[in-house]
């Protein structure tokens, strides 16, 4: 089994919802509450040492509920290992998740993108404002209920 999954199952057994593996890539679905602690553990533990956050992707699973999810793609240069973390956000109207900027500072722009296009708010982000759309834009255009041609 993956070393990261073993570590998480030892330290945060209650937080893991599901572990899936597809063609050698491991995805861990987590509860969102202790996400920052888990990320810090995965980064700081010498076994896993996921020092690099490749990407954060916000997702809209409408009309499913929970509707919004956030996916974190981690990479470890030391082990040449990848790990995907996935959280589903409980609130469908105002999705909020803790910011991981305190763990990886690269997360600032990724989280701003997810906020800009999907309206997911990141609690503890130092400067959460739009990054791609004009600053005076109304709405979040990558939401499934946003009209394709704009409002």
């Amino acid at each position, binding site marked *: 089994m993956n070393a990261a999954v073993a570590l998480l199952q030892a330290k945060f057994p209650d937080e893991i919802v599901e572990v899936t593996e597809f063609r050698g890539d491991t995805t861990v679905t987590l509860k969102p509450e202790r996400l920052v602690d888990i990320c810090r553990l995965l980064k700081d533990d010498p076994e896993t040492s996921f020092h690099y956050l490749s990407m954060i992707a916000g997702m809209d699973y409408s009309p499913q509920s929970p509707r919004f999810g956030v996916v974190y793609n981690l990479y470890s240069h030391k082990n040449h290992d990848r790990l995907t973390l996935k959280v589903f956000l409980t609130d469908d109207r105002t999705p909020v998740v803790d910011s991981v900027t305190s763990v990886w500072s690269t997360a600032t722009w990724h989280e701003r993108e997810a906020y800009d296009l999907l309206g997911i708010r990141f609690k503890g982000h130092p400067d959460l404002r739009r990054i791609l759309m004009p600053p005076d834009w109304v709405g979040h255009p990558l939401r499934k209920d946003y009209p394709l*041609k704009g409002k």
Partner: protein
Amino acid sequence: MGIEERLGYNILTTTLEKLVDWGRKSSLWPATFGLACCAIEMICTAANRWDIARFGMEAFRASPRQADLMIVAGTVCKKMMPAIERIYEQMPEPKWVIAMGACATSGGIFDSYSVVQGIDLYLPVDVYIPGCPPRPEGLLYGILKLHEKILKDPFLTRQYQERLKARQEAA
């Protein structure tokens, strides 16, 4: 110009108009300004195989203040539009606009929330060039059409008539 103010609209000023039009047409200076893949074709047009210099417009000006032709080459995002309008306003009169390619003309395949559906919603376009992207021959053809348009531009006549009308209204 001023000269037609004293001489009136007669054979001398119409000949002058033709001369000035010819001069403007023969030394169009485009602004260096590309937005997407169309810009690559525009660069290609300026390079040696097609050689835009044959038409007196080899000088792509890096400053809009020195340019009199704006070739809008590429997809225009709504976030980009204020910058383009500002560049257009910085260009001195007389100035012309070419909408190059499907995106600048109509939004092209990007029928989307973020893309301007044709720059003619914001700018006065003189020539539309179809294609995705247009080949350099297409751009050159569009430029030659613009030359024809400039040659026929009755700017002195129009200015004279406008001033005459203003004087008449004032009197």
